[in-house]
């Protein structure tokens, strides 16, 4: 294998953080090179260096045998590196086609040739298995999964020699992951190299050729064979410790008291949803991306207006369309989009954690300085949020720890009902295990939990009862013990699955 890209000793510091501290990486032509590491290990920072979006403080890049520097995204692009960034990097107000060609618009005399752009886009979407996405549709109106597909299409449009994918599958369901992998295989067959980042280790095993592991901004292992290195070994390298990444089984059956009752609930895109959650029970919602699960839990929570149906907590009906009422009744929601829906990124951890329970720390509306930081410190310790400093701005925490902050918020608020929408999206294996353990622990304390997840094993492992959602209807309800992965997959796909 000839080496396409060689990275040596890259160092990158942000004010107060050493994000990269001597990273080495070798990418060969036509391989899928996997980059692994915990949240905050520096994966995204590294690929931003490769994309010319960050300038390294030290270190060397060699591209096709020649030393290079990428002073701007444009330079990396010109060299033949295309990047799919972790945060959705699309312009919501532009059409799909315009996003795909952004920066490389086919044009004559400055006039964009929209037809050419649309034809190109249509071809790429077809190749990605999504001919149904109209090239003229505004990107902001697509689902998260649809947007991810557009990001991939955009990278393909560049005809690059190296495509970097930063957690492209976080918002994709199994069907679409399969589609993506097919495309990746086609690419590598043509000699294109792919750097692939994911927290789902089984994906690495399926698509990867070699693995490089980052820890605390440094390379701790290079060029491990992706298919043969034992999972436990990879996790040990990433975390520096052996981690139990299986989901702990429930230690006791749930109680009898019904805490949450949802009856015949309907919203814009779902109908006739009824279920109950008992104290200590975990109910899982399985389904494809876009099947309406998020909409269901958000409607239960009052964040969206229900068109019909009632939600009762401990027998008392909630006012529809009022989050405040739901929170008062003891409900809490960890939303799907952590950053845009869950966190005040620029505020401290303590202030994020105390937000719903703020009144408790005030006397007649007045707060002492750092009134809540003690309480915040306590819940942070319970969840092992790292670093354990309540005054740190949340944006400086890694993804997994940010997720824990949202959980900590509801732990501190202490209601009886917790709604978790994709609680482990973008969370590394280590933190994932901790979140699983926490959900268990809460259930054992009598909290009624609803979990939405696109990862079927996760739903099956966590839930006592599983609801399968398809196109806005609950198509199947069963105890988790009666289901297995294949069966659920059949159910979520429905007739579409052949």
């Amino acid at each position, binding site marked *: 294998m000839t080496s396409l890209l060689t990275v040596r000793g890259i160092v990158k510091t942000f004010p107060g953080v050493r994000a990269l501290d001597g990273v080495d990486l070798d990418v060969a032509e036509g391989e899928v090179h996997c980059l692994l590491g915990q949240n905050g290990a520096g994966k995204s920072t590294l690929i931003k260096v490769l994309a010319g979006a960050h300038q390294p403080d030290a270190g060397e890049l060699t591209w096709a045998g020649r030393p290079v520097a990428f002073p701007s*995204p444009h330079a990396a692009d010109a060299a033949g590196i295309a990047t799919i960034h972790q945060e959705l990097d*699309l312009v*919501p*107000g*532009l059409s799909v086609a315009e996003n795909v060609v*952004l920066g490389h618009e086919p044009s004559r005399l400055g006039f964009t040739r929209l037809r050419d752009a649309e034809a190109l886009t249509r071809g790429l979407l077809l190749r990605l298995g999504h001919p149904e996405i109209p090239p*003229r549709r505004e990107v*902001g109106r697509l689902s998260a999964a649809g947007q991810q597909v557009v990001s991939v299409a955009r990278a393909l449009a560049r005809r690059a020699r190296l495509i970097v994918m930063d957690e492209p599958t976080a918002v994709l369901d199994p069907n679409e992951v399969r589609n993506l992998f097919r495309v990746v295989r086609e690419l590598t067959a043509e000699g294109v190299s792919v750097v692939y980042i994911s927290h789902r280790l089984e994906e690495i095993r399926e698509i990867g050729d070699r693995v490089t592991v980052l820890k605390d901004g440094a390379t701790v292992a290079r060029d491990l064979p992706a298919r043969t290195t034992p999972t436990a070994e990879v996790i040990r390298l990433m975390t520096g410790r052996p981690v139990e990444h299986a989901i702990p089984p429930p230690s006791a059956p749930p109680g009898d008291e019904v805490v949450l009752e949802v009856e015949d609930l309907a919203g814009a895109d779902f109908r006739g949803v009824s279920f109950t959650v008992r104290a200590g029970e975990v109910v899982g919602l399985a389904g494809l991306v876009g099947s309406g699960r998020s909409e269901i839990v958000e409607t239960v929570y009052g964040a969206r207006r229900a068109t019909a149906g009632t939600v009762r907590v401990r027998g008392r009906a909630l006012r529809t369309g009022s989050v405040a009422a739901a929170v008062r009744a003891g409900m809490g929601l960890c939303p799907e989009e952590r950053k845009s829906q869950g966190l005040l990124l620029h505020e401290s951890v303590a202030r994020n954690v105390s937000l719903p329970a703020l009144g408790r720390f005030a006397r007649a509306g007045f707060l002492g300085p750092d009134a809540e930081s003690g309480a915040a410190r306590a819940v942070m310790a319970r969840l092992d949020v790292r670093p354990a400093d309540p005054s740190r701005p949340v944006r400086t925490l890694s993804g997994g720890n940010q997720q824990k902050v949202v959980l900590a918020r509801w732990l501190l608020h202490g209601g009886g009902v917790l709604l978790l929408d994709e609680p482990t999206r973008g969370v590394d294996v280590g933190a994932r295990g901790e979140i699983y353990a926490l959900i268990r622990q809460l259930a054992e304390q009598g909290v009624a939990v609803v979990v939405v997840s696109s990862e079927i094993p996760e739903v099956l492992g966590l839930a006592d009862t599983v609801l399968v959602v398809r196109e806005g209807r609950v198509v199947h309800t069963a105890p988790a013990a009666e289901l297995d992965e294949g069966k659920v997959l059949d159910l979520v796909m429905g007739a579409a699955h052949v």
Partner: protein
Amino acid sequence: MSEQTTVSAEPMATEEPAAGPSPWSRLFLGGVGHNLGLVAVLALLAVVGVATADTFATTANLLTILTSASIIGVITVGATFVIIGGGIDLSVGKLMALASVWATTVATQSFGPWVMVLCALAVGAAGGLLNGLLIAYGRIVPFIVTLAMLISAQGLAERISGRRSQIVTDPTIAAIATTRLLGIPLLVYLFAAVVAIGWVVLNRTTFGRRTFAIGGNPEAARLAGLDVRRHTAALYVVSGLCCGVAAIMIASLTTTGSSTHGTLYELDAIAAVIIGGTLLSGGRGTLVGSILGVLVFTTITNLFVLNNLDTDVQNIAKGAIIVAAVLVQARARRSTP
């Protein structure tokens, strides 16, 4: 409401096509279609006009409305670019005043009309460039930079003019406001030309589409390899150029160059752009909407004068009408797909 709830946080839609024959007509209809509310408001104002003033529906009066709209309209075209690109330009009115003063000094006028036009355009573009450089490369927020420019341009205009209205003696420039082609004032053609050019640039050129990208998600635009800074600076130059064109127009219309021209135009222009459906945060908007917004404002003024209302009543009513117009517009938006 339906599934739109997900996106309802974004009250505006771009000139995105629904579905139609050619892409050109699609885009144009899109622009109007999304502004049906404003068209309805204009129609309503017209009904009120016809009902309350017999002269409202005369050609002469409609041309008066268009002529009144022409100057602030040209400025609004530039403001639309800046706002869609994620910025704001408070300096437009006084940049226009400065350009009008500079172009009408005795010295400039002695060189004839072309030099006057060039001078106005150059002053506008230079002011815009300074705005743009300070914002894009000096990294100062646009609000502050353009406010400072407003203040300084006003001072400079006063200084140059000695705080006197400078009379336009050049017959060619003076003739712009009095010439008519096929019965329509030249100023209206100029206005239409600037709008047309602006529309084409915004919707049909790479520059225009990149403006949306930079306003909608500057980080994504940067990662896509766009030179966000240069483009941002260019947007303020566009706005400055529009001010230069408007300066010539107002010098001709009032037969003067004066530091008092364009007072509060910045608020009028921004209000027209926002009423027209452009997001103040950038990334989405239509030029057609902005122009409709300008027409709403100008028609309101015309109605007031035709009905001989007192200034105080005019003001009270104007505020209420603006709010009502936006409510109608928002309702119309929500009910159309």
